[in-house]
């Protein structure tokens, strides 16, 4: 597969600068740590958050962290599309007989981000060991599938928001509001957000399926907002829908693309 060669070449080239890579991996772990420290510090000053205790929110944060880190590793660099559109480099991708999106991902795979993924998995294990989950085979499966589905949802958001660059090059960090903002959102129970914001982030984009609904099933609690329990298992379906939607947005964007012509 051509894509595998592209990714392998990238990883090899980045591994040549060993000290740089080590520093970057360490930095990436620290970013993961930061998310968790925030949750711990919040619970230093309050016993519950939106009706949930520390163990439950910690589990949500761990699931969110895992999902985000995996998406960031796989497609996070699509946010650099802006620079490629501006510099005209995107033209080079279009003339090759491979998918432009897949090339973009392969071209920039950020090996350093394995640090954050590994850390996220570690935190997830810790969060489960912390005791809120009574493990059954079904729940174990849910624990494995949820971060993957969550990663696909985050990945779809990464791709869909990056396409803004096709219409608006000077869009700056506006996509961050939904990508990194999405990470912030999913770490906490959706009960803490206002109705409008919740509708937009949790239901319309589907962020509630990354951590909140699965956590309810895992800790065996009904939703205070009254959603049925089966939603906890729905993440893979939402992920597929999100991925298809993001693909369509991407194709529309590429059709809309006009080279800068320099």
């Amino acid at each position, binding site marked *: 597969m051509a894509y595998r060669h592209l990714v392998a070449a990238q990883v090899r080239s980045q591994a040549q600068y060993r000290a740089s890579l080590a520093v*970057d991996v360490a*930095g990436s772990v620290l970013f993961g740590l930061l998310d968790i420290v*925030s949750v711990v*510090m*919040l619970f230093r000053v309050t*016993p519950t*958050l*939106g009706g949930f205790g520390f163990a439950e929110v910690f589990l949500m944060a761990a699931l969110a962290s895992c999902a985000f880190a995996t998406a960031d590793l796989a497609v996070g660099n699509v946010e650099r599309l802006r620079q490629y559109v501006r510099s005209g480099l995107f033209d080079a991708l279009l003339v090759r007989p491979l998918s432009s999106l897949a090339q973009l991902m392969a071209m920039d795979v950020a090996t350093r981000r394995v640090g954050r993924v590994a850390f996220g998995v570690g935190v997830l294990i810790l969060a489960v060991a912390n005791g809120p989950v009574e493990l059954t085979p079904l729940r174990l499966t849910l624990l494995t599938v949820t971060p993957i589905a969550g990663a696909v949802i985050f990945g779809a958001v990464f791709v869909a928001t990056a396409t803004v660059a096709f219409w608006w090059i000077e869009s700056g960090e506006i996509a961050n509001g939904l990508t990194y*903002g999405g990470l912030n959102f999913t770490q906490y129970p959706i009960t803490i957000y206002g109705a409008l914001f919740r509708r937009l982030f949790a239901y319309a984009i589907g962020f509630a399926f990354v951590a909140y609904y699965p956590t309810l099933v895992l800790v065996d609690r009904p939703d205070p907002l009254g959603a049925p329990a089966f939603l906890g298992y729905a993440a893979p379906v939402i992920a597929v829908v999100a991925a298809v939607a993001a693909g369509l947005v991407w194709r529309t964007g590429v059709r809309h693309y006009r080279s800068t012509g320099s």
Partner: protein
Amino acid sequence: MALAAAGFQRYATYRQAMVAAVVTNSVFGFLRIAVMLAVIGAGTRTVVGYDERQLATFVWAGQGLIGVVLLWSLPELAERIRSGDVITDLLRPIDPVWQLLAADLGRAGYAVLTRFVVPVVVGALVFDLYAPRRPVTYALFMGSILLATIVCFSCRYLVNAAAYWLLDVRGPQTAWTLTSGIFGGLNFPVWFFPDALAIGLIVGTPFPSIIQIPLDVLVERGSPTVQLELLGVQAGWVVALLALCRWVQRRGERKLVIQGG
């Protein structure tokens, strides 16, 4: 002065980027305030010395301050050092530290009118914000913002100046992004840490001087005497960091090798 005016004008031309930044800051404002209000809703009426309105102001003014002090920026100077373009800065008769500081203050002046005002107005439309009760607070807050901008500028300068030795500053840049957010009071007020640690951070590190102190001044956490002491801490960091910048710059110039080609 001319450099400051140029800094003001330069950023006034990037209007679309400004709009994008303001929208992003506001979205994060909604996210952060939800968490903060959940913290307060769960327990008593106040948390670590802030009531609900003070905490709301803390979040929204904080989202505005990000753009004023320019917490995150591309390592422009580091790139100039790497490429050798920095030589044109060195040829001018003013120390590069002062050149860049003047330009940065001009930029901050423009940011106060745009990137600070918009999130605060958005916040005020949706939430009940805290208006300072003591008139002197406004003056202290302006002073505190100015000092915060200089502290933040110095920190960014030092991160960039690492390029004189390292060429690639991604490591220091990452470290800066992490520490400034969590120890500076942006992610949550530093008073969420144990008191001893919070005080240690405020006095012993420059980070709280950038976001935490101006916001504590604005929401009047503590008496006017405490506020003056906080400004004193900021002033101390300004002097120390600018001296450090000058020293690093001089050492760096000796180290600088302009790569040919």
